[in-house]
């Protein structure tokens, strides 16, 4: 599993800025019906089972880091995510508030308290972004992710 995990880190995850974007990416590799992870390239190189285990481990790691990161850091990551989505920031924030798509980005069997904390923090971070949009509409388009958050 170590090789496929290293491969995943080097080829895919290192190119994604911020753990929130990584969480969304990793959750998108999971089948909604079965909960199994799948990545075409990784499976071709290391086998389906190895790839599945690597994706699951990476998903858990990213989740744990996000669940314990500060609200300020999470808000900055959310801001960066919204910026990079190339959509109208206000619409993205509104859709996230209404649909709460981040709920399905949580790994299976995670500690319930950790899940509740991250969901709650994301809800508050969206409010923070909304407030910033109201007070300074240009802020979202000009804000950038602090270098410390780019891993």
């Amino acid at each position, binding site marked *: 599993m170590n090789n496929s995990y290293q491969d995943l880190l080097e080829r895919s995850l290192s190119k994604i800025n911020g753990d929130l974007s990584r969480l969304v990416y990793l959750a998108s590799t999971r089948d909604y019906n079965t909960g199994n992870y799948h990545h075409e390239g990784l499976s071709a190189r290391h086998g389906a089972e190895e790839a599945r285990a690597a994706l699951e481990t990476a998903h858990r790691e990213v989740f744990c880091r996000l669940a*314990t990161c500060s609200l300020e850091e999470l808000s900055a990551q959310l801001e960066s995510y919204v910026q990079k989505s190339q959509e109208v920031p206000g619409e993205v924030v509104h859709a996230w508030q209404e649909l709460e798509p981040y709920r399905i980005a949580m790994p299976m069997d995670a500690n319930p*308290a950790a899940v509740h904390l991250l969901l709650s923090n994301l809800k508050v971070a969206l409010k923070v972004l909304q407030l910033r949009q109201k007070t300074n509409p240009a802020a979202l388009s000009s804000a950038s992710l602090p270098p410390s958050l780019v891993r």
Partner: protein
Amino acid sequence: MELIIPCAIAFVLFLLLFLATPANATADESILDEESLLHACHTKAQCPPQLVQRLFSRADWEFIANLHSAPLLRIFRKERKAVAVRWARQISSELSRAMQEHTRAARRSADLKVASELQLFFRFAGLRLLCVLLVVLIGFADLHTLAGLATKMSQLAAEFLSTRPALEAKSHTTASSTFDTL
């Protein structure tokens, strides 16, 4: 004035819990590394200390307070308190489940040690009371002022839950040896 009685109860409970906790159980209080954080995030039975610290963090409160928005502060306070209450109740139900499993195993055990069973029960009762007290305090105190109490409760609950497998194994052995003699 309102805080005096709950604080006094908390102090007495702490004293009882410290007296009832085995000496080796409090020896290792080191902060978990990233690997153990990952493990703890995916262990339903326990919460990583980092998570408790984050939940009761002063830095998060300060970040929101510095944004100078009363509605946002209200939302944050409500959200964080709701998560804290759920966390305390989660710990409480895990303790109850552990105690129920132990009681079931103890019923089959042939050589029950009354003293150790009583000590276990008092630890359990103390922790459950502490959970209730924490839920009450969360209702009307700022969360960051409860960080110490929450961290200690989390540690004590983790210690209590980690003694469970040994108890089960012992009960299982005695139960099967009783069965053999029959």
